């Protein structure tokens, strides 16, 4: 998402927390998704085994990524799919535009793709005079509203049906206001139907790309993905280079993990496996299929054994659903394409710490995200890693903007903290001071922040050390 204003996380948070309707919408949606996920993964032993399997598949693929991508390209090419590579978002957008221009296309119909959000593709194409239509219902709603997705899987989750009714009434000609969900669905369906047949190019994402067969797997619930990939004469699939897996037999466990984690479904309504353009004698399907493989900073992440694990992500969004912070502020507050815990980890790596390092502060490290991640990404460890990289600590130092979140006052505070906690005698003095004047400290800095919703901490007149001495507890 190209930002028009500089990212101001604090202001975004304040605005989100003040929006009571947003809070209600998020809470009810997230509660529902959590309950459904729990029901579909009721067997915890089975889930544990499945997560281990999913993690192993992704780690194996990442460890052999160049080889698998080469294999994928060869297989796709042999199958008649044209493969394109892009190192940057600009190259990727240009490639898509070139394909459209070669076919004199003026309308693209799009299935849901977070990578296309990462590319800012809609804005780019519209600036070039192309029409772009989102066909996933949630994406369609927010495109009408002129907003970016607020969630990886349910992009319009921040809106309730009344708000959607108003958007439809305002933005779709001759549409009456209705809160009836079936009627709203019918309005969207009718509007989109026409466009599927006039779009010259269909675009989709890719959930898994299978190297050994050259198969592009696409998971969806509305059938719009199938329409986008079969009705227009040209289909462009876009994928981040981490989406490749080696074998077809590795897809079922990942698919089960993805649908269960994302929406609490055993399987989605549609599961598309795309292996080639229309073959001679076939009656439908696109005449051309293009696969665009984008790097956009991923290969740099791959180099670091710890950060590499962030590339295991299958974009199920369950870390968002379980995050007490995301549930309260929603996706827009995070200011970039990927919100929630996974966003806190990958956005600073994509955008640099100077721009996006503050995101890592939006976690109490409660570990709910790490607990539910279907491919066992150690999200809390990686959030901590972003904090280290931000303040310029350790031997790590490979994320762009290393050390740019280092503030002198904070550095001094931690140095002082380390001093009184390294040396027991200093610690005793510190505790003595706290017990004497701690309860009369002025409400400045951290204490001011603390007391916005709480009474000030009270320090005991005698420390545990003093009480232990009085009780004569042994030292050794």
């Amino acid at each position, binding site marked *: 998402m190209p930002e028009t204003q500089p990212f101001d996380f*604090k202001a975004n*948070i304040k605005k989100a*927390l003040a929006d009571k309707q947003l809070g209600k919408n998020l809470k009810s949606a997230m509660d529902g998704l959590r309950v459904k996920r729990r029901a579909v993964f009721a067997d915890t032993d089975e889930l544990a085994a499945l997560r281990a399997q999913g993690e192993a598949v992704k780690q194996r693929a990442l460890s052999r990524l160049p080889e698998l991508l080469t294999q994928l390209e060869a297989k796709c090419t042999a199958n008649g799919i044209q493969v394109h590579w892009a190192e940057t978002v600009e190259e990727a957008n240009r490639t898509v535009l070139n394909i459209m221009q070669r076919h004199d296309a003026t309308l693209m119909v799009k299935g849901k793709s977070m990578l296309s959000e990462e590319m800012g593709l809609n804005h780019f194409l519209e600036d070039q005079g192309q029409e772009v239509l989102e066909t996933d219902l949630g994406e369609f709603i927010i495109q009408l509203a002129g907003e970016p997705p607020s969630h990886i899987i349910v992009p319009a989750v921040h809106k309730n049906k009344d708000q959607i009714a108003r958007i439809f009434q305002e933005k779709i000609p001759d549409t009456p206001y209705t809160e009836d969900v079936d009627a709203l669905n019918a309005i969207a369906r009718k509007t989109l139907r026409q466009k599927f047949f006039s779009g010259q190019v269909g675009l989709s994402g890719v959930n898994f790309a299978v190297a050994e067969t050259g198969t592009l797997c696409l998971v969806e619930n509305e059938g719009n993905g199938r329409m986008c990939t079969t009705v227009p004469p040209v289909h462009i699939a876009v994928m981040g280079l981490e989406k490749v897996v080696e074998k077809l037999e590795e897809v079922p466990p990942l698919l089960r993990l993805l649908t269960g984690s994302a929406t609490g479904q055993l399987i989605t309504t549609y599961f598309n496996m795309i292996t080639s353009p229309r073959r001679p004698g076939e009656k439908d399907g696109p005449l051309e299929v293009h696969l665009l493989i984008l790097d956009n900073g991923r290969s740099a992440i791959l180099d670091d054994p710890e950060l590499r694990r962030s590339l295991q992500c299958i974009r199920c969004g369950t870390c968002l659903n379980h995050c*007490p*912070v995301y549930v*309260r502020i929603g996706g827009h507050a995070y200011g970039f394409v990927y919100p929630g815990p996974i966003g806190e980890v990958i956005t600073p790596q994509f955008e640099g710490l100077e721009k996006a390092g503050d995101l890592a*502060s*939006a*976690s*109490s*490290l*409660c*570990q*709910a995200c*790490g607990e539910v991640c279907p491919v066992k990404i150690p999200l809390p*460890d990686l959030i*901590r890693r*972003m*904090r*280290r*990289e*931000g*303040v310029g*600590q350790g031997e790590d130092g490979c994320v762009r903007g290393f050390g740019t*979140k280092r503030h002198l006052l*904070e550095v001094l505070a*931690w*140095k002082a*903290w*380390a001093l009184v*906690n*390294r*040396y*027991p005698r200093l610690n005793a003095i510190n*505790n003595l001071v*706290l017990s004497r004047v*701690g309860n009369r400290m002025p409400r400045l*800095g*951290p204490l001011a*922040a*603390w007391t*916005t*919703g*709480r*009474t000030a*901490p009270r*320090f*005991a007149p*005698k*420390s*545990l*050390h*003093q*009480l*232990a001495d009085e*009780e004569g*507890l*042994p*030292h*050794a």
Partner: protein
Amino acid sequence: MDSKRTYPAKPDSVYFFGTCLVESAYPQAGMAAMRLLKEEGLRVVFPRQQTCCGQPAYNSGFAEEARQVARTQLAAFPRDYPVVVPSGSCAGMMRHHYPYLFAGRPEWEQTRRFAERVFEFTEFMRHVMGATFEDKGPPLRVTWHSSCHAMREMQVTEDSKALLRQLGRVELIELEREDECCGFGGTFAVKQPAISSAMVYDKTEDIRQTGAERVIAGDCGCLLNITGNLEHRHIPVRGQHIAEFIWERTHA
């Protein structure tokens, strides 16, 4: 992380690591835990060199400062006694994060062995000591708040509740959304005060809904946060550390 931990036989002596919050704000909780351990026949050693586990700096990205402080703790507990900690969060730091913090460094082997000896107080009382309690207090309704690290890192929530359920006249009312963070998160509470406040407001609202007279917890960070907000909102529910609560109930 720790779902199938194997526990040692009853030792003669244990170390007690008080934690920095107990040290200065909740010393009675620490004393109660040590007295309960002594009642089990243990020699309770309280090394005076101990300070803080280092988690505040570690979670804020200041790993080097955390390591400096962690080394003080490694030196303070030299013998092979179990180290009992009245906090799931500080125990989790020492048990799960020390080895990570010292990975590839000379102290790694030492931290790995040290981590093996670290126990959260209620898990130690239940699994190692098999402690049983006789409730001497009047009937009381309480609710339980588990810290995220007690629940997800140390996985001792059931141990804490099992101890509470031994108290015959204490009615334990389960908290709605008990697996959700109270919003403390150490420096999170001061770096993101607005989100943290929103979280603790929801938590104290759930506590109020239980109708309990007290909220019992095993972590003083959560207690500081929750009781601070309860007071701020004038909700008359008292917060107490589980060790102090059990001591009070068994010595009424």
